[in-house]
């Protein structure tokens, strides 16, 4: 029996639900594993976890972004007790959607939610250790805190890729350490939409148009980051008429996926013949791209901009001296 642990840090719960997508195959998996720790599913306590010996867990899947000091303690403990530790889902992989909170400082975030001057403290009359855990200055991916053996990317990971992980882990036929369970090629390979002349002559948001069901979404002005994103999801979102938002993470040679896609988008923008006469309309079109950070780094901001996002310590103050 393979001893399995599944843990969530700054998570939405979707990754835990995603195991159900395995369908009947889940029963085969469950037959081969012994769940030793999985807060969403079983009632094991932290003390049970801490009582395990080193490498007492064969396979640990951690989903969620690492946002609090408690998250850090937990994943460090899990790492110590696990033979294999897997980043499960986009949040653990790259920081995920919660990573976009890094665009404002921790102090500003807390002030926004709880009011100015908020500080976590224990309940009235309670012990100091009962205070809520502190937020880290910024959300970080799992690999920033502990060594990670494998990654199953996605928001949530598609069932095929979860299946691939379990096939490998349960059979013992594991790929080289560091392997990401997804395709090496970008999504376009599995996308059924047709591509003709690659030109972007407008930017529209998905809710603004009814897209042509046959043609590439990017060619229609809907920003799809499929070209920089690993395949393995059968291009589920483009098939359903929505653009890929990059949840499986970048292809191995893409580098920073936000910058790679930025370069591709800017290269494709065309407002007629290229030339000085077109500069003004090109700039207008480039400026019409809505929410560049959210579009280009939806799941990956902490992974690629760990120390320079607005408001983080070390970032230069704004011209007026303020921090947002």
């Amino acid at each position, binding site marked *: 029996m393979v001893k399995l642990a599944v843990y969530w840090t700054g998570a939405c719960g979707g990754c835990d639900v995603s195991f159900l997508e395995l369908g009947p195959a889940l029963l085969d998996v469950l037959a081969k594993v012994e769940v030793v720790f999985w807060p969403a599913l079983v009632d094991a306590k932290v003390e049970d976890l801490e009582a395990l010996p080193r490498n007492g867990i064969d396979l640990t899947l951690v989903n969620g972004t690492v946002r609090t000091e408690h998250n850090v303690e937990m994943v460090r403990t899990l790492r110590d007790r696990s033979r294999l530790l897997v980043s499960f889902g986009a949040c653990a992989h790259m920081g995920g959607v919660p990573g976009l909170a890094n665009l404002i400082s921790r102090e500003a975030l807390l002030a926004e939610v709880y009011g100015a001057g908020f500080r976590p403290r224990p309940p009235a009359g309670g012990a100091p250790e009962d205070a809520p855990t502190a937020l880290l200055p910024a959300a970080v991916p799992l690999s920033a805190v502990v060594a990670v053996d494998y990654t199953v990317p996605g928001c949530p990971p598609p069932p095929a890729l979860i299946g691939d992980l379990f096939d490998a882990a349960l059979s013992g036929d594991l790929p080289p350490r560091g392997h990401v369970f997804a395709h090496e090629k970008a999504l*376009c390979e599995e996308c059924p939409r047709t591509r003709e002349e690659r030109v972007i002559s407008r930017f529209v948001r998905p809710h603004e148009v009814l897209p042509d069901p046959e043609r590439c979404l990017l060619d229609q002005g809907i920003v799809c980051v499929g070209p920089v994103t690993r395949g393995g999801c059968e291009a589920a979102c483009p098939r359903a008429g929505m653009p890929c938002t990059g949840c499986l993470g970048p*292809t191995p040679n893409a580098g920073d996926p936000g910058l*790679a896609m930025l370069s591709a988008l800017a290269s494709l923008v065309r407002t007629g013949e290229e030339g000085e006469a077109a500069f003004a309309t090109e700039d207008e079109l480039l400026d019409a791209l809505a929410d560049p950070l959210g579009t280009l780094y939806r799941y990956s901001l902490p992974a690629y901009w760990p120390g320079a996002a607005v408001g983080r310590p070390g970032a230069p103050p704004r011209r007026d001296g303020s921090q947002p």
Partner: protein
Amino acid sequence: MPSTRGARATRIGVFVCHCGKNIAATVDVERATEALTAQDGVVYGTHHEYLCSDPGQEILKRAIRDHHLTGVVVAACSPSMHEVTFRRAAAAADLNPYLLEIANIREQASWVHRGPGTTDKAIRIGRTMIEKVKGNHPLEALEVSHSSRCLVIGGGIAGIQAALDVADAGFEVLLVEKQPSIAGHMAQLSETFPTLDCSQCILTPKMVEVAHHPRIRLLAYSELESVSGYIGNYRVRIRRKPTYVDPDKCNLCGDCVQACPVRVPSEFELGLAERAAIYIPFPQAVPSSYTLDEASCLGLNPLRCDKCSRVCEVNAIDYDMREEILEEEVGAIVVATGFDLYPKEAMAEYGRGTIPDVIDGFEFERLLSASGPTRGEVRRPSDGRVPREIVFIQCSGSRDPELHLPHCSKICCMYTAKHALLYRHAVHDGTAYVFYIDVRAGGKDYEEFVNRAMEDERILYLRGKVAKVFQQGDKVMVWGVDTLTGRRVEVAADLVVLAQAMVPSDGTADAARALRLACSSEGFLKEAHPKLRPLEALTGGVFLAGAAQGPKDIPEAVAQASGAAVKAVGILAAPMLTHSPEVAEVDEALCSGCAICVPQCPYGAITPGTTARVNELLCESCGTCVAACPSGAMTLRNMSGTQVLSMIRSALAEIPQTVEA
């Protein structure tokens, strides 16, 4: 080709050149050598006074051998100076030349800075090239065999000259001309400046040479359909339109013209005379044969009309001729598609082309011409009277960025002076007025020629623009100004000749499209470099000659044509063509077929598909596609993203401080 990702273990040698005092005066070459030799991967470092000298080269070669170097960085002058030299030396020492890089520490450091910061910068520059060499792969220049035939598009004087020069050099030429005869506009001229040679007299011998040249295949009444391929290996499709007359049988008797019931305006005579549906544009046409114009013929069918074929004693007329498509392979292409005049219809202030006695320069040439519609007598189109008062308007459509064209058409001052002189010769009591802004006469004997016109007492040069030209009774009123006296001028002219601007011909636009040639905003073909490469298009293997490239006169067109011919022969005569191997490359294991790279390439070198494919011979290594590729599947050999990121980090890393020199 191996994939270029990743760095490899290397034994790099660093050679820092003093370049006499040029580098050593401001760069501490010893400290630089020490710092660079300490770099990871460098096993040998030295400095020398003049590395480009023979002894310097020997030191380089010996070090490569003695230290088994797998890469070399020469820190010296700009690579534009000696990269070839040093790479050749490396090859001589059995090191692949692409494993040698130049660090420019002279033009970019020692010559532009002073103080210890200079050495610091030289070290950083050297480091970046060490990092680059670490990622370089040994490459072989691409060799390709090629066709040794030349295509010349356009049979005007430039095309004719280029074809003759290439053929005389021993290579076969395909000369494609869309009119029924070669000759172009030069045949429409009466005399040429400044010699006043009879234009056809100096042109026709060249035309005859083309006709009889064993290595020139003349395809008249033909057009270029499409071109594919690349330098040395172009595949061209040419459409031969049917003339319906067999040129080998036609004996130019002209009986067909007498029999033909159709009369239409003659293109050659610019509408000043008519021709039949079957015609020869002018008597000295080459090919020497009549042509039946399908558009104006009554039907190409004996049931409709077969008068011409019935009178043809040699049975040269064949209504069943069909269009032919030829597919040919050529190694080089010369584009000599020529010019046209800016249409009179565009001149709103000069009558929009509706005033019969307002004509352009070519029409006037036909009037002057002894073989023209008026047998050389200057008579005005409206009523055939000899004009006593004639106005020439220079810069009509030229030098007018607001309303017409900004450029100067170069030849108009000269031919207007010529026109004025020839008019005076033909009409002794006539008066000519020349309205000009400047007089541009830069060629040999040109100034003297214009002065002859200016000194003629009945040729009046008036410096000023003409504001309006209009019909009044049987005169053409010309309202202009004489800026040198400040007075308005009104001339009641019998005939007005507009020196219309030179514009590229329609055939030029067609050729540019087929060959993907860049054009200026006015449509003239763009040369690779206006000063140093005026005869080459940016597309490899394509050369430019004549007025298609820009306004020019006949001697310039001929000179350019001969130059283009030599350029073409340079390709045709090479045993093999070589092409840089530092081209774009697709990693098929990573390419998703997104095709974002395809439209980035100005050379059309990338074909989309399941994975993108780069034609290495078309790729010019700009790397635009590489930067656009989102998934990192496209790379540029020996200038990969990984290499550059390494170079950047090494440029910014701290330099351990040693004792200052």
